[in-house]
C-alpha cells in the first residue's frame, strides 16, 4: 500500500512552494479565465483544481521558475481545451452542463449587450477565440499569448487581427 507520490523529490521544496503560491495568488483569476472559456463555474473550478494537482506532479519538467505563471496559465488553458473537446465528443445530444454564462438560461445575469458579444466570440474559430480571450481578458502581450497557446508570436498577432475583424463583422461594427 502506497500513498500517492505527487512530487518528484525533496530537493524541489522551494519551487513547489512557489507554484502553490502562484496558484493561491492567481486562483480567482485562473478560475475566471477558465470560466470565460468553458462557460460554467463548476467546470472552471475543476479545471483549475486539476491543473493545480498536475502542475505539482509535473513540476520537475519546469526548468525556469520565472516562467511559472505562464506555465500554470497554459495548464489551465489546456485543461479548458480538453474539456471542450470531450464535451464535443460525448455530449452531442445531452444537456452537457450548467447553462453557460453567455446563455439566457444562466443564473448569472449578464446584460443582453454582453451576451451578444460573448456569443459572437463563441462562434469564432477556436484559435481566434482563444487568442482574443487571452488578449482582451488577461491583457497579455503577443509573446505571452504565443507561449500560452504554443504558437509563434507573429501567428498570435495575425490571429488576433483576424479574430477581431470577424468579431466586428459579426457584431455589425466596422472597425
Amino acid at each position, binding site marked *: 500500500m502506497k500513498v500517492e507520490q505527487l512530487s518528484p523529490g525533496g530537493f524541489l521544496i522551494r519551487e513547489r512552494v512557489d507554484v502553490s503560491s502562484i496558484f493561491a495568488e492567481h486562483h480567482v483569476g485562473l*478560475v*475566471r479565465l477558465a470560466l470565460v472559456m468553458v462557460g460554467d463555474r463548476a*467546470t472552471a473550478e475543476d479545471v483549475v483544481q486539476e491543473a493545480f494537482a498536475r502542475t505539482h506532479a509535473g513540476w520537475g519538467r519546469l526548468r525556469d521558475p520565472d516562467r511559472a505563471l505562464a506555465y500554470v496559465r497554459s495548464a489551465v488553458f489546456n485543461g479548458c481545451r480538453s474539456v471542450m473537446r470531450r464535451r464535443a465528443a460525448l455530449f452531442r445530444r445531452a444537456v452537457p452542463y450548467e447553462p453557460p454564462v453567455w446563455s439566457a438560461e444562466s443564473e448569472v445575469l449578464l446584460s443582453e449587450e454582453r451576451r451578444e458579444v460573448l456569443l459572437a466570440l463563441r462562434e469564432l474559430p477556436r484559435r481566434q477565440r482563444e487568442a482574443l480571450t487571452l488578449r482582451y481578458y488577461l491583457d497579455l502581450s503577443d509573446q505571452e499569448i504565443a507561449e500560452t497557446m504554443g504558437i509563434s508570436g507573429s501567428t498570435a498577432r495575425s490571429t488576433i487581427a483576424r479574430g477581431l475583424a470577424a468579431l466586428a463583422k459579426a457584431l455589425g461594427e466596422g472597425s
Partner: protein
Amino acid sequence: MNSPVENRLREALVEAGATIDPATLMPLQASRRRRVRVDFRLVTAGVAVVLAGVTTALLVASPGDEQRAVAADPSADPVEVSLFLCGAATLKSPDCREQIVTEEKARSMREILQGMPDVTELRYEDQMTVYADFRQRYASNRAWLDAVAPGDLTAVFRLKLKPETDVPAFLRRATALGGVAAFRYPKMIPSLDDLKADKTDVSVFLCAKQAPTPSCGAVLAPGKPETDRKIAKAGKAITLAQLNAVAKAIATTPGIRSMSYESQQEAYERFRKAYADNKVLLQATRPTDMPTSFRLQLDPKADWDDVVGKLRRMDGVASVVNSRCETSLLEIQVRYGVLVPAQKLCGTRSS
C-alpha cells in the same frame, strides 16, 4: 486607440469573469485524487460512461455518526468535516511542505479551530487511535488489514460545524493554518449507509451503444495520461445472443443466489436519488448515459473472485464490479484518508 469592438469585448469578458465571487471558491488541494470519483460512480449507479467535464469535486463524506446523519432532517444536520493532518504518510503532499504536524502544532491548531464560531464539536484522533479504529472495523478481513499499516495513516481532526456554515470559506480558513494534508466533506456524495444498504453484491454492466471501454470493443487513441485518452473507435452494444449467453452463465454459475436486471431508466432513478444534492452532475446525466446491468447477490461462502472473473470475460460485458469491495474502499478513503489500490484488493475492473 481601442476600437469599439475591442472595448465591448473587454467589458463583456470582465463582466463574465466577475460573476465568480472569490469568497465562494473551494480551496485548492494539491493531493486531490481523481480516481476515487470514478470508482465511486461505479459503485453507486454504475455509470460506465465517462462523465467528462462534470465536476464532482472530491468532497468525500466524512464518517462520524452516519446513522444519525441519515435519520435526521438533512437540512438541520451539523456538517461533518475531517481534516487529515500532515504525517509521515502524507509528507510528499505539497500541501504539507515537508512538515509533519507535531503534537504541539496539533494542540495549537486545535485551539484555533475550537475558537472558530462555526465549530460545534471537535475530536482529535492520533495516528494510533485511527489505526485501532481501522483494525476493529475490519477485524474480519485479512486482506484489508494487510493492506493498511499504521504508517499509512495520519492523525485527524473530526469536526462538526453548524448547519448554516459556509463550508468552502471554513475549509479555506482551516487549511490556511497549515498542516492539513487533505479534507473530506460530505455534501456531494450519497451516504455510505445507502451504499451498504444496497442488496447488490456484484454488478455486471453490459455494453451499451457507443460504449467507451475496450471490453466492448472500443479502441482508445494512443496517448497519456491514461484517463484522458480519446476514443478512436466506439464500442458496440451487447447483442441479444450475447445477452442470453450472459443470463445463462449467471443462472448456471454456482454461488450466485439471485439475479435481477436493471434497465437504464431504473439505473437513472437510483442515480438521481443518490445524487439529489448534486445539481451539476444530474444535469449532465441522462437516462441514456446509464448502463444496463445484472445485479447479483452472492453466497458469502462462494469464491467471489472466481464468479467475477468468469463473467468479466464474457462478450458484451463492459465491466463487473464487486460493489461490497468498492464500498469498503470508499469507506477507507473517507474515514481514514488513505487510498488503497482498487485493482489489488477488488481486482474486478476491466475498463
